[in-house]
């Protein structure tokens, strides 16, 4: 177990390096720089551009910028500044005065971690995941148990909507229903304290995951129901509830867990649309903006952080397999 963990964690290093390299090359290949503006607005003058480039070390050769970002480089005073390996994701070129790690993780003064950008994203993602699983798994199970009943059809109809309709449409409709129509919430939240303001965005955000979970759960349950060991369990005279919850559900959960890793990572990294529409002050909005802005360190830092999240997600899934199905050994 320990060697397995160690080996998997060591693998993170080459993966991160390759991702960083590809991101860097692609980023630099795209024309334009951090101080190029939207074509219809006023541009920064060339001398100032030069000053800024020098200030942020963008006048150095590309290889040195890359190494400098990952490992570190000497600043103007000859001091060594450690790079990404020390958790320093570099200064943002556009949000002047802030480092990328500050932008992502630092809460406003006198607030806790969950009020940071990533804190908001995490709150939204975790809530969305909880809602998706809490609704999706039972929905799938009942759908399968009552196959071809009206309940099954209703659930299938809803899950099909969840998969087919893009989230911005669902998000906008939910605003029209809950804010404009029912007035359960304002269209634009004035505060993001606590969990309440996150509930409706999280339902919308988790809708797709919920639908996928329900569909997958339904099909694996149907599959499991016809297995020999279920028939054996019934033949043994086990009660129906025990058959469903102990023998069927546990086996049916394995594929769900497989999708869980990417789903968690997807939720943590993919809330851009939801953040924009509901105005959630999270990471996704910044990330998308940073690409158009050519905010190099912001792009690199956020990408690396996302990669770590995905790697950790997959790793924890591998570990969870063992818990659900003792036949699967990790070593």
């Amino acid at each position, binding site marked *: 177990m320990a060697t397995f963990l160690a080996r998997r964690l060591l693998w993170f290093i080459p993966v991160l390096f390759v991702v960083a390299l590809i991101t860097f090359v692609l980023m630099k290949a795209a024309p334009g720089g951090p101080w190029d503006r939207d074509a219809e607005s006023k541009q920064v003058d060339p001398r100032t551009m030069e000053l800024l480039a020098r200030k942020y070390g963008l006048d150095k050769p590309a290889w040195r910028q890359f190494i400098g970002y990952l490992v570190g480089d000497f600043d103007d005073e000859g001091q060594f500044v450690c790079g990404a390996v020390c958790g320093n994701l570099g200064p943002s070129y556009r949000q002047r005065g802030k480092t990328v790690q500050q932008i992502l993780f630092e809460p406003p003064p006198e607030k806790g971690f969950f009020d940071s950008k990533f804190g908001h994203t995490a709150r939204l993602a975790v809530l969305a995941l909880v809602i998706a699983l809490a609704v999706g798994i039972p929905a799938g199970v009942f759908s399968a148990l009552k196959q071809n009943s009206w309940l099954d059809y*209703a659930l299938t109809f809803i899950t099909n909507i969840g998969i087919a309709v893009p989230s911005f449409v669902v998000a906008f409709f939910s605003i029209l229903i809950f804010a404009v129509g029912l007035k359960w919430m304002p269209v*634009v939240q004035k505060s993001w304290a606590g969990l309440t303001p996150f509930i409706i965005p999280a339902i919308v955000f988790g809708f797709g995951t919920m639908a996928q979970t329900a569909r997958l759960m339904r099909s694996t349950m149907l599959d499991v129901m016809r297995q020999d060991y279920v028939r054996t369990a019934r033949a043994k005279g086990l009660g129906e509830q025990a058959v469903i919850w102990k023998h069927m559900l546990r086996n049916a959960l394995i594929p769900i867990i497989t999708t869980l890793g990417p789903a968690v990572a997807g939720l943590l990294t993919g809330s851009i649309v939801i953040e924009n529409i509901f105005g959630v002050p999270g990471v996704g909005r910044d990330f998308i903006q940073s690409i158009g802005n050519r905010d190099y360190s912001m792009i690199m830092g956020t990408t690396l952080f996302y990669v770590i999240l995905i790697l950790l997600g997959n790793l924890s899934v591998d570990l969870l397999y063992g818990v659900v199905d003792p036949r699967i050994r990790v070593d």
Partner: protein
Amino acid sequence: MSRKTFFTMSGIVAAASMLLAACAQPVAPAQPQVIKETVEVVKEVEKVVEKTVVVEATPVPAEKPKVLRINLGTYPDVIDPQKSSFVNEIAHLKLIYEGLTRLNEKLETVPGAAEKWEYNADATELTFTLRKGLKYSDGTPLNAKRFEYSIIRNINPATAGEYASITNEIAGAPEWQGAEKDEDKAKFEEQVRQSVQALDSSGQPCKDYEQEDCLTLKLKLSKPAPYFHTVMSLWVTYPAKQENIEEGGENWWNSSKFHIGNGPFILKSLEPFVKGVFVPNPNYWGDIPKVSIEYQYITDSNVAFQAYKNDEFDIVGLAAEDYQAVMADPELSKQATIYPGSCTLALQFRNFKEPFNDPKVRAAFSYAIDRERWVKDVLQGLGSPALTWIPPGFPGYKEGETRFAYDPEMAKKMIAESSYGSVENLPTIVLTFGDTPRNRVRYEWLGARFKEVFGDALKLELKPVEPTAFTAKQKDRESDLQMFIGGWCADYPDPQNWLSVYFEGSTTFADRIGFKDEEFDKLIAQADVELDPAKRAELYQKAQDRLVDANPVAFFWHNVNAYMVKPWVKGIVTTSQDADWPGSTVPATIDIDTAMLPQ
């Protein structure tokens, strides 16, 4: 079973369609009765009601707090006077701070923190006299030394502000920024410090920020610049406190406690990406605003518009996509506030590249643009056709320009007279643009119109590129760009900012399109140093006339600012410079008629 299934399914479909219909209803335009009080105001009302019930003997009329709620769109990247450069950033700064001068509702430069100013005989020295007894919002004194610090901080290459070059007329400023060697840096820094000096009543350099008689600020300019007092109204000179900047570090501007200013408002709180709250500053020397201001940062214009209709905002931007629906609505159309903006856009040609090195080809394309139709069909009325450079509402605007107006016959004639002789002989012309869904529609429209005028023989290629890449190509003289739309927005209302900064032969802008015209350069060189305002205006007018004749670009359209403003917001006076929200240049006149607020 199949029958049962059929019924179940049709039941679900029916239910779903009812649900959808129910959802669709609130979208229907014009339903003022749906509108309800916002959460915040409701709370206040409840409080007041409680009070009046308890203290029955003294019935105080319930004053609702006057809060102007504005959606500003994108949250600022940086709110530091000497580093900010975007409209949404400046929208914060200009509430909290004030420069030596400011603009009034007619975009004239009027006294701000300074009560008067004076140029020397050849306009190479500018002396400001500050008002006596100026205070920051926290009650501490504000003297000329504060402005000395801000102006030097703006020039200082270590600050690396994105708008640093705007004060480059100050002697030594560009040299300090360009200095490579340490001794040069020290030398030019010293020169800048000599050029920007706060002086006391006896004409001696001021000692500190407390000194009461430190009321004079003297600027030495490297060339005559009779427009420079207007530059001093810009945000780059705003006197943020040195001790706060130093205490807060590079990130000082993030906290409202360090934003102690001298403007009409105090920044009460700033919650990144959520909300910024500004309250009137009782220590402001001028008219104290009647309302508080609350900024929120919703980037999705659809959502912002819904929130506006739901009475959650008093002012939101009006997107071109919503314009028709708003205009068709009797209530909403009255709330639309549309006024000229501060930008001019032009179809630009690389004058040094074939076929646009031939003035007749440039002329042909200028004649070929149906600007009226573009404004009507493409901009949906949100813009005005342009045949000259300086937009309406700005000093130097020329009314009644007709040269190069749409004329398809002239367009064809120009091609016939050009060195190419006919449309067939023209090389392939590439029209490059930033690739956004909106632009795709716009440029396809434009391409189709060119084909209409010149016929199918015109070899025109539309080339969408990623927006930032497009900007980069525009700046790179050697890039493959041939014809593209680009524009300019005013930094300050003076013809110098339009003509000299953009089209003077040695500027980077003129160089990029390859425009250098001796006659034009001569005229603006005279105008830039002319002290007599009338003569100066005339020289700029002649220069602009010459520019239109030379036709290095085809002037295309002036932008407009379009907003929705609730009927209870009173006293808004707009200027062309209000690109953040209507009335931002003179916020003191704005009031809210609380009687009209929805219950």
